[in-house]
Every structure is written in structure tokens, then in C-alpha cells.
């Protein structure tokens, strides 16, 4: 019984290794959107040294996937926001139905990944608000 279990586990490992080897081999043909030179630059800056192109592409693909996931979530938020607009307004906005990446959508999608992004606080006040009363009188 133990022997059969060990055989199964060894077979599973072999399969996993084969999958990983295939994936690494496929990375040689795959061109990520983030160029290799750029990834190399940032990796070198962080102390990561490896001459293997496959590892560099692995990092590039991981980053691309993360950004794509975040952007997909933001797109869903954008579509959901557009669909909830009141019918009267919708008719007007149908002409301008563009999917724009906005701060609200991005902050909502990034919150799921543990990144808190907020609009920068903007205070509008009169230019003489912080000055002394004496200088104001002048």
C-alpha cells in the first residue's frame, strides 16, 4: 500500500516537473508586453542577478498578469458603474460611452490586492485664508 502511494506521488512529481519544464520552454517563444531589457534594469537595481532569460521572462509575465488582473477588475467596476446610471442620464451618455480607467475604479480593484489608493485631498479656499488679520487689512 505504501509502495503504491509512493509510486503515485513520484509520478505526480514527474508530471509537475514536466509541466514546469514545458512552461519554462514556452517562455522562450513568448514575448511579454514588458520588455526584457526593462525587467533586467529593474531586477539589477534590486540586486537580482541571473543570466537566464527564462527567469527574467517569468518575472515579466508575473507582473503582466498582476497588472492585467487589476485592470480587469477595474474594467468590471467601470462597466458596473455605467450600467447603474439612471435611464434618463443613460440616453445622454450613450453617445460618450467610453471605457475610461478612473481613480474610483482603480482604487476599488486595488483594495482587493491590499493596496489602498485614494484621491489626493484638494482644499479650495480663498488665497488669503492662512494669512494674519493685520496683513489682510492691508
Amino acid at each position, binding site marked *: 500500500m505504501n509502495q503504491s502511494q509512493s509510486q503515485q506521488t513520484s509520478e505526480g512529481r514527474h508530471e509537475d516537473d514536466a509541466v514546469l519544464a514545458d512552461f519554462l520552454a514556452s517562455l522562450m517563444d513568448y514575448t511579454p508586453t514588458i520588455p526584457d531589457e526593462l525587467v533586467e534594469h529593474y531586477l539589477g537595481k534590486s540586486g537580482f542577478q541571473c543570466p537566464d532569460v527564462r527567469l527574467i521572462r517569468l518575472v515579466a509575465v508575473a507582473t503582466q498578469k498582476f497588472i492585467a488582473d487589476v485592470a480587469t477588475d477595474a474594467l468590471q467596476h467601470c462597466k458596473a458603474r455605467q450600467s447603474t446610471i439612471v435611464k434618463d442620464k443613460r440616453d445622454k451618455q450613450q453617445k460618450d460611452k467610453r471605457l475610461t480607467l478612473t481613480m474610483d475604479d482603480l482604487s476599488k480593484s486595488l483594495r482587493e490586492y491590499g*493596496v489602498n489608493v485614494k484621491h489626493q485631498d484638494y482644499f479650495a479656499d480663498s488665497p488669503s485664508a492662512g494669512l494674519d488679520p493685520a496683513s489682510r487689512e492691508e
Partner: protein
Amino acid sequence: MSSKSNLNRPLAAKATAIPPPSTPLSESDYAFTITRTAVAQICSSIGFTAAEAPVLGILTDIAIRYLRTIAKSAADSANSACRTQANLVDTIAAVDELSSVSGFPGAWRATGCFLNSGAVKKLDTFTEDSKEIPFAKPLPRKIFSVGSRKGLRNVGSSKIEYIGGEKKHIPTWLPVMPVIENHEKEIVEKRRRELWGYCAKTEEPEREKKEEKKTDSGEKERKGLELPLKRGKVRFKIGGGGGGVLGVCRSGGIGKRVLCENWNFDDENSSKQEQLDEVTQQQ
């Protein structure tokens, strides 16, 4: 009047903080701009038609931070294993660590092997499913290919590292040796003069020597027509029993070794003589 001057202060500060548009961008700005383009390409591939500029900047910043965090994590795990170069296991461990926030299949295994990680399998499916979008323009690699600096790559503004050529065995984390110009001979000559004054060798006798060498070599060349300077290869067998040309023969049964030479140059000499005759005929 004073209120006016007070009002002008923050504007002046702002003006000094923002660099004028004519100044060249630094390397980090250049890299940021390229990343921004790549992120914009990813967003457009997903379905966005437009993006607000500051939002795109934030997403670019997050992408850079993500990349650098992976790199730092992998480099740390490599260093903790007494290695300078990160390998596949370090990289996968770093990817696992970062994707554990959102979760992946098989993350519950505390002692699972890194090589069958669920995060990597997700990446595999991503590469299979997503459309391949290469970067808009190919980027140039900064490689010096002039003279003695061949095989060097410019990494930073003042940092250079070896990538190939004769010095490719030097690890990349070592600083580059300063490039010494061809003033070495002059310096050596100066030092010799300082040490020995004019008793040291001067250039004239050296020239004479060179001339002498030249004449000698000319004579040798002439001689070479008669006898070859380089002798042909001589094969020999040890203890071959007469078959070898040069070897050690055991004479008698006492164990006394005698060097015996059997030169058989008849064939070789005849072939060389033929070649020489041909050359002289051509001349």
C-alpha cells in the same frame, strides 16, 4: 504689497521644483516612461479605450513596485542560501509570496514543493489564454563595442559590467577594473630613467638590436630554404620492439636502458624537398 509677495512665494517654489522641459530625462524617468507605455498597452488589450493620466501613473508605479518586490525577495532568498545569483526556486518562492494575497490553488500546503506551485500554473494558463502583445518598439541594449572596452555593458550612469569577451568569467557584482591606456611603456621608461639615469638602456641600442634581429631572421629564412626550421613530428613507441623511431630499448635482461634512435626521415625529407622544388619553380 506684503500680501502680494506672500502670495507669490508658493508659486516661485513650485517653479523651482518642476524641472524645465529642456533638461534631459534621467534613467529612472526613461524606465518609468517605458513601463507606462507597457502598462497602457496591457490596459488597452483588456478593453479600456482611455485612461486618466495620473491613474496610469499610479498603476505604473504599482507595476514597478511589484517587479522590484519579486526581485528583492528572490535576491534575499538567494543570499540567505549563500548564493549571489538567484535561481528558479528563489523566483518561484518570490512569486508565491506575492500572489498569496489573492490566493492560488495549492497555497494551503505548508510544505509543498515550490516547483509545483499553483501560482506558476496560473501563469502558465495566463500565457496560454492571453494574446501575445509585444512592446511597441524594440529597446536598444547599451553595449560598448569599441576597442578595449569590448564586452562591457552600461548598467547605470557610472556603473559598467562585463557581459562577454575575455573577461566574462568575472562576476557581475564586481566593479570593473579601470581601463589603462597605452602609456604603460612611457611610464616604465620614465621610471627606469629615474632609477638608473642615463646608464639605463636607451632606445638606440634597442633599435640596433631590432635591426640585428631582422637581419638574423632574414638569414634564417634563407637558411630555411635549405633546411626546414620546424622539424616534422616524430612518433615513437615505448617498448615497441623496433617499430618505433625513437624510444627506449632494453638491451639485455639486466634492466639497463639505452636510448635508441632510428631516424626514418627519408620519406618526409623527400616530400618536403619536392614541395620546396615546386615553390622555387613558381618563383
